[in-house]
């Protein structure tokens, strides 16, 4: 009896141990890669970059992980920072798109590789417009523009300035929708374009650090602009919960126009998610903001050397051309390093400059301010 009791309890404990989460270790030769971008970016890496890189680097494989969203990426970054201080394995090597300013103090602690001095053979090719920090490497750009249904809106009459757009939205109630600014960049940058509009269309007015000076006084007039158009939006002031859902509504012909990422809209048209008759237009008075996606490499990753080879690899002409042709983004390298026929073919999407709204404190203030001031216009009883 006693022995059976003992066997039972030991067996139970052993079974319990098996169920406990096991410690995972990064494997050498497997680059742990994280992204917070949309599905089309992950598809691009899965179908284009991964096979090409693995073919060029035998013995190295890419483990592509979707971290969900920006904060999901930052959580991995925080884990890596904690691992750095305890000399542990961060189980991460490469972030597809990341702001090295987060988590705070990570650069000083030496978490990220200084890409400028890392000896990348292609670093000098990078478009200087895209460089924000020595610790991050711009490799693709994207801009928010307006996607619309040409069967309902003649391209000749499409609004080309912000005032025209507002007038069009009000004249066509229910035909426009943008997503909540924290749920995806297309709506987020539409909201930021409204903030520019309310502040003299001057992108240089906003920097990563000046939220405490300008503060909510800069945002309040933008909330007024957005509240003003709310009743004319889809369903009298509804907001989708992501870039994809906006594209779905345009695809179902429920609305006529949405703000959309250029690359996402182009891949959606290529895949038939959006019909061939979808038109794309950028505002001419000041474009909807966008920006470059910048990759970072962790200095304490097990596969740091391989990750740096990957960083160099995605700046090659082969991948940078694929960014244009396969992804519909624009390259991170200067246009001189793109083949001439591609340059000619894509000259319409080549932006002269890309207004890029700073992150930092602004991000939080916009996410919270929009929800409190603009979103509650939705009548819950409707």
């Amino acid at each position, binding site marked *: 009896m006693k022995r059976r009791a003992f066997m039972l309890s030991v067996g139970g404990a052993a079974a319990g141990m098996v169920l406990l989460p096991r410690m995972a270790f990064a494997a050498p030769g497997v680059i742990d890669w994280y992204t917070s971008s949309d599905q089309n970016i992950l598809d691009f890496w899965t179908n284009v970059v991964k096979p090409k890189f693995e073919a060029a680097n035998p013995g190295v494989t890419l483990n592509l992980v979707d971290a969900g969203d920006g904060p999901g990426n930052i959580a991995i970054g925080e884990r890596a920072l904690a691992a750095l201080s305890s000399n542990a394995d961060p189980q991460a090597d490469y972030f597809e798109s990341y702001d090295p300013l987060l988590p705070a103090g990570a650069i000083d602690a030496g978490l990220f590789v200084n890409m400028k001095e890392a000896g990348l053979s292609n670093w000098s090719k990078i478009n200087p417009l895209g460089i924000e920090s020595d610790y991050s490497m711009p490799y693709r750009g994207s801009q928010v523009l307006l996607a619309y249904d040409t069967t309902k809106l003649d391209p000749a009459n499409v609004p080309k300035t912000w005032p025209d757009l507002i007038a069009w939205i009000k004249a066509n109630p229910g035909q426009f929708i943008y997503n909540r600014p924290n749920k995806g960049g297309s709506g987020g940058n539409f909201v930021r374009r409204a903030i520019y509009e309310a502040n003299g269309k001057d992108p240089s007015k906003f920097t990563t650090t000046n939220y405490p000076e300008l503060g909510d006084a800069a945002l309040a007039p933008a909330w007024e602009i957005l509240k003003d158009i709310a009743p004319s939006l889809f369903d009298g002031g509804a907001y989708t919960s*992501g870039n994809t859902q906006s594209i779905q509504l345009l695809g*179902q012909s429920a609305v006529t126009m949405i703000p959309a990422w250029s690359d996402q809209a182009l891949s959606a048209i290529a895949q038939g998610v959006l019909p061939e008759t979808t038109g794309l237009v950028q505002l001419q008075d000041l474009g909807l903001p966008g920006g470059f996606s910048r990759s970072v490499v962790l200095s304490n990753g097990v596969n740091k050397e391989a990750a740096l080879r990957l960083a160099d690899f995605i700046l090659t002409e082969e991948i940078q051309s694929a960014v244009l042709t396969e992804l519909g983004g624009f390259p991170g390298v200067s246009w001189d390093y793109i083949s001439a026929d591609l340059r000619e073919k894509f000259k319409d999407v080549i932006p002269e400059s890309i207004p890029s709204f700073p992150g930092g404190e602004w991000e939080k203030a916009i996410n919270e301010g929009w*929800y409190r001031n603009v979103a509650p216009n939705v009548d*819950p009883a409707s």
Partner: protein
Amino acid sequence: MTLTAASNDIVGKKQGRWPVGLLLVAMPVFLVGWMIIWPILSAVWRTVWLPDEGAGHSFSLETYRFFFSDQYSLNNLGVTLWTTGVCAILLVLICVPIALYLRFAKGRLAAYVQGLAIFPMFVPSIILSYAIIRVLGPNGTVDLLLNSVGLPKIRSPYLTPWGPVIGLVWDNIPLTVLILLSGLGNVSNQAIEAARDVGARPLAVLWHIILPRISNSILVAVSFTVLGIFSSFTLPYVLGPAAPEMMGPFMQRTFRDVNDPTMAITQAVITFAFCIVFGLFYVRSVAKNRAP
């Protein structure tokens, strides 16, 4: 009661049983303590022991005072309670008839109905969300069908508070039906036949014989589903309006996008306080069942 003495003889001396029983429950108790009780205590502690103007920390109910004086937060709590209440009522209204049918019907059709009623259990809610947009969304399948016979479009529930309600009710049908079915197992055929023999009509049988026996199951089913619905995330996130938000998306946004963990934990503690009330209903009804 006479069995107790006999089973003691079979299993052995009473002292010998003690460690086995305790060891068997040790793991779940340990896990509950470590992964549930401890985080709750730590969450409550972190929301009342806040950094003060000096370098130290002091006791403060500031975050709770803010929550209950902030109309935006209260609206979110309100819509969560509304959604939970509406879902609970709809679930009882829909699931009691299904369970009654499955309990008393025989044959192949009943098997198909049972399969359909259990089916939502195997559909992940993110897939359900996008399917609902496709079917009930603007220009979705329902609109196309109505349009083909010349009827006007429906008022789509997508991005309104009714969107999550429809999704959550559908998602919770299997659990509710299963619990009610097990409760209906307590209703003996003899009792119903006896009632019919003395001339009870179907409604009287339902009211006087069946409902009193399954009231406990209804309570258990409601408290189970209410707990899930109150803290649901995916369906209100994808299908619901931007504002007011349900507590799940609200907490997540406060934590990740507004970067305010203390306020997010406060919202979580308040959510938990509501859930514990429903939990107590469940514990009470289980305890009542166990009583000799």
